[in-house]
């Protein structure tokens, strides 16, 4: 019987069945989203005022660190300056994504909001396909575990100062946090972020900054919390 022969096992099970799954589970979605063009980091930056604001905010807060990391911003307003900022911001996004991946951030923070479990209430609008059609989602960073909150709507929710202190030593700001410390993103203290630190802040501020309504704040039931706390006290 062919089912017990080399030809059957190698070609039918090995190649045909694998191929069938590959076509249905990988090629079909790839073709379905073909019409959504993949944006480059530069394209993401140029249409996103929110992100540019946050990036320039880094330069205002930590001018020296910013200069050391990205160079001198052209002093005169105009096209040159715009171009320079867009390019530097795109670089920072790419670099920030690399840091995000290297540190395994995405293994504790997912990047998609599901239409169930009140996630749109807690985090913001449910994720859509076109939000992921860009080079920074190559490979995509959906994630599979949430030890910390989802981050796809994180942009603008906290200030850059907050992020700096939080990356340096999370428990200073989030009581009871189990997030590790990342002092190597700084030169010794939270007010001296290095290039990696600045890039990661740019990346995190980018997440969700493309939405029309922005930012989204975590929603939770204040009353229930107070009730629980009261019960615990009793």
């Amino acid at each position, binding site marked *: 019987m062919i089912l017990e022969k080399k030809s059957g096992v190698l070609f039918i099970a090995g190649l045909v069945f694998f191929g069938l799954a590959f076509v249905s589970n990988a090629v079909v*979605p790839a073709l379905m989203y073909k019409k959504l063009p993949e944006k480059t980091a530069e394209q993401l930056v140029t249409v996103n005022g929110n992100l540019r604001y946050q990036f320039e905010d880094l330069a205002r807060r930590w001018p020296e660190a910013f200069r050391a990391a990205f160079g001198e911003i052209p002093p005169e307003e105009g096209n040159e300056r715009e171009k320079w900022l867009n390019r530097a911001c795109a670089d920072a996004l790419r670099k920030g994504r690399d840091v995000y*991946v290297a540190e395994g951030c995405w293994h504790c923070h997912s990047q998609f909001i*599901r239409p169930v479990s009140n*996630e749109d209430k807690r985090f913001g609008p449910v994720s859509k*396909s076109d939000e992921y059609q860009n080079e920074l989602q190559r490979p*995509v960073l*959906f994630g599979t575990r949430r030890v910390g909150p989802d981050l796809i709507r994180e942009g603008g929710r906290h200030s850059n100062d907050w992020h700096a202190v939080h990356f340096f030593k999370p428990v200073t700001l989030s*009581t*009871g946090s189990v997030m590790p410390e990342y002092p190597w993103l700084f030169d010794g203290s939270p007010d001296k972020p290095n290039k990696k630190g600045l890039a990661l802040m740019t990346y995190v501020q980018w997440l969700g900054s493309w939405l029309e309504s922005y930012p989204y704040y975590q929603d939770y039931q204040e009353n229930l919390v107070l009730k629980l706390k009261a019960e615990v006290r009793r």
Partner: protein
Amino acid sequence: MSPNELPQHEELVDEKLVISFFLAALGYLFVSMLGGFLMALQLIRHFPFPGVELLSPGRWRMIHTNVVAYGFLANAFLGALHWAVPRLTLRTVLSKRLSWFIFAAWQVVVLSTAIGIMLGQAQALEWGETPVWIDPLALAGLLLVAVNFMAPISRLTGPMYVTLWYFMAAFVWTFLTYAMGNFMPQYFVTGTAAGAVGGLFIHDLVGLFVTPLGWGLMYYFVPIMLKKPIWSHGLSLVGFWGLAFFYPLNGIHHFLYTPIPMFLQYAAIVATIAVELVVTTVLINFFATLKGSMSALVTNMPIRWFYSGMVFYFLTCLQCSFQTTLTFQALIHFTDWVVGHAHMVMFGVFSFWLLGVMTYLFPRLLKTEWASQKMLSWHYWLSLVGITLMSADLIVAGPFQGYSWAQLLPWEVSIELSIPFWAVRLVAGLLMFSGLLVFLTNIGLTWAKSRKLSHVAANV
């Protein structure tokens, strides 16, 4: 051929090579468990090296998962294959020198993966965080493995034994899965479609690399140890072909409720439930084979490892057919439920089987009885209690976490309620870890005993 003309074991199997693969595998299991231990300490807020870049728990979490897949499982499988394939086909592998080259090259691949991740070069592919520059090397290694083992298999004629179906399919699938997962979402597709490929990759790595090699070994070793054939050849066929057809179609169930089209999600769910039915036939086949030899569970240590693994296999697949439904997913996705499930599969099933194979083979490789039967028992019970506790603990933690999120409680609440579960998980992990240490000690003692015996033999 008369029995005398058959090739002898010494010509077929390079025992030093098998030992080397096994020792490398156990070394990596040690490293991987150490990584898990570091991350577990972080989660209960007692990480001993805060702020040390090279020991960052985030990076060691990736070392934990990658080293277990490519360091422990792959090495242990290669060792077992170098025993099973030549003995089953009565032919040597293509080249023993190639085998040794593969051994050395594979250690380079695994070590570079671990060091690359430690230095911050991880790739954004879950369970395939191998730095991008290592991917082509690993793929070349997989090709060499396939060529090396296909040489003896290809010279067989006619229908083949079940084990070889699984092995042959695994050689093709592992190569294709690795190539698809590491290259497609990196270079060819982006976004949601890349997510679908990523899901397919995580899933196929379990289903098309680890599972077929594992079952192939079970079909080989169980009849040998029980000294009787597998109960039903027909069910073996159902099991293999059912797995081959349905397993690869499951991938997208890792990303339900994402922007991936719903009809693909439904298809993946149905295929996942189908896998559970197939798995049941395989389990029936193996337990029917055991019928009449139940005492082997007590007297035969490897059989005990194998059948415990099969019980876990049934449990994980049963669990999977529930958790893959959208109803369960809404609650348990993103929680520790899934982590518990993953540990039950990887340790409770496949590591159990491979540790069983090692328990069977080490005395044969060292030509010496185990130094301590008691230590074998300790290894088994520490591992069994450890993994049962860990999976149960994490699976129970999952709904707590899921409900606390769905109820819109502040995030800190989900952390606070998880801490006791994470503490229990740490203890469970330490049980498994100490089991491994006992096993390593036993191997060391047995090796010392074998040296002494050969020394005595030489002097006589």
